[in-house]
């Protein structure tokens, strides 16, 4: 009517600019500044000349990749079984897989520690990878399950009708059609694993450090500019990953789709 209702988005628009866009710009700004606020590339030079940080960075990517691959390996069959009406009729199992997504990650991590303690297993790299997979497996299963579940069953039937064996149906029909879910699963696992910081410290009792912890320590110790530069590097990795994976299947949709 007289006041356009589209103007109701203005307060939130301002809020988004102040608390989402501006902070991200500030990261970029701080990354290219020294303490006095002058322009510098020193923060990035420092990163490449600090073997420890560089090593942590590469190691974090390795851990994230291993975690993602393991989640995919264990998660895809689970998602496929859950979505297959002949193998799984119960909706409860699906909900059971989704539930842990909503429990505080620290609590889940400490629970892993408790499990390893209980079974008298050593808390090293093995525990870290177990903890990561344990934490993020549901994030891989859910999007894949979702695409498989929504998939029109008649595609597979049509393929069978045309003489394809069950194995061929899977490799030629089901798998290609479920790729969007796989990509968004990879995104949903890879991004938090590479950026996590508390998990590694708690599981390995500070023996293993990941890149997230490096960022946090620098920020904590007042090295804001260097911390911002490290955060920017991580942001670039994440931006590359998310443009690489299918843009349509955003984490937002997956999480939002739960409700």
């Amino acid at each position: 009517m007289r006041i356009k209702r589209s103007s109701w988005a203005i307060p939130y628009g301002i809020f988004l600019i102040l608390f989402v866009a501006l902070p991200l710009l500030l990261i970029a700004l701080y990354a290219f500044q020294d303490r006095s606020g002058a322009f510098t590339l020193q923060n990035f030079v420092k990163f490449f000349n600090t073997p420890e940080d560089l090593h942590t960075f590469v190691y974090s990517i390795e851990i994230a990749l291993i975690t993602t691959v393991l989640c995919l390996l264990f998660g895809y069959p689970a998602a496929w079984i859950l979505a297959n009406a002949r193998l799984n009729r119960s909706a409860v199992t699906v909900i059971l897989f989704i539930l842990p997504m909503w429990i505080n990650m620290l609590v889940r991590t400490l629970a892993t520690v408790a499990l390893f303690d209980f079974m008298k297993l050593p808390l090293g790299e093995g525990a870290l990878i177990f903890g990561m997979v344990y934490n993020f497996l549901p994030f891989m299963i859910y999007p894949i399950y979702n695409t498989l579940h929504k998939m029109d069953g008649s595609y597979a039937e049509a393929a069978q009708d045309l003489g394809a064996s069950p194995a061929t149906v899977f490799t030629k029909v089901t798998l290609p059609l479920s790729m969007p879910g796989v990509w968004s699963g990879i995104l949903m696992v890879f991004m938090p694993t590479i950026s996590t910081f508390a998990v590694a410290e708690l599981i390995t009792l500070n023996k293993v450090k990941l890149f997230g912890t490096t960022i946090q320590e620098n920020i904590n110790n007042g090295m804001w500019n260097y911390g911002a530069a490290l955060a920017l590097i991580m942001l670039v990795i994440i931006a590359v990953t998310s443009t690489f994976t299918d843009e349509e299947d955003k984490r937002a949709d997956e999480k939002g789709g739960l409700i």
Partner: protein
Amino acid sequence: MKKFLAQAYIWLLLIILYAPIVIIAIFSFTEAKVLGNWTGFSLRLYGNLLSGGVSSALVRAIFNTLSIGILAAIFSTILGSIAAIGIFNMKGRARKAITLLNDVPMLNPDIITGVSLFILFVAVGVTQGYITVVLAHVAFCTPYVVLSVMPKLRQMNPNTYEAALDLGATPGQALRKVIIPQIRPGMVSGFILAFTLSIDDFAVTLFTKGNQGLDTLSTYIYADARKGGLTPELRPLMTIIFLVVLLLLIVINLRSAKGKPKKIQRI
């Protein structure tokens, strides 16, 4: 046979997934300081937790978690619902821009959100504490409220607003009596979601809580665990949190399932 194998695989995964939580729950019923020692069944840890027989810092952390969660949920529900109505009525480039910006907090890893807000508060020179934590939580919760309310607006017959005006309602009355009741399910879902996300948050809180000694449950547990040896009372607490989250999720899922069968029953 195939079905049996498949079911076995699923349940094996589920057992592994839930084993840590189950162990914590089991050992919340014994008094031992170290997890893994069973010293007989006891409700003392629950008793301590509920009677305040724990450090006042933990009690304050619990209180902060709940109050920040409620405040963040209230603010983001109000902000997000108004924004959703606005965005719904927008067109073209402006709508695309704000939708994109709305997606950013959901796509960003927590640590980036945390660091970026930390730098913002530092740059502006705000003392970080309770208020900055609430602001930060509103920032990453509101997009989810917008996403919850939007589908309700899409389902709404746009003529109902005009019908209300036509029947004599002022735009304000039309909003209160016609639009809000129709998008209320989305607002409630958004509120619960925002509350869950807020009490669940660790990374963003850690970066924006400042150094005035403010703690939420997450940051308290983190500090406690880093000191080595978890306070035993955290075991019953985690068990309770798990049950509460379980309950909230069941409520949300029941709410979304409720809409459809209702119509069928009535006919």
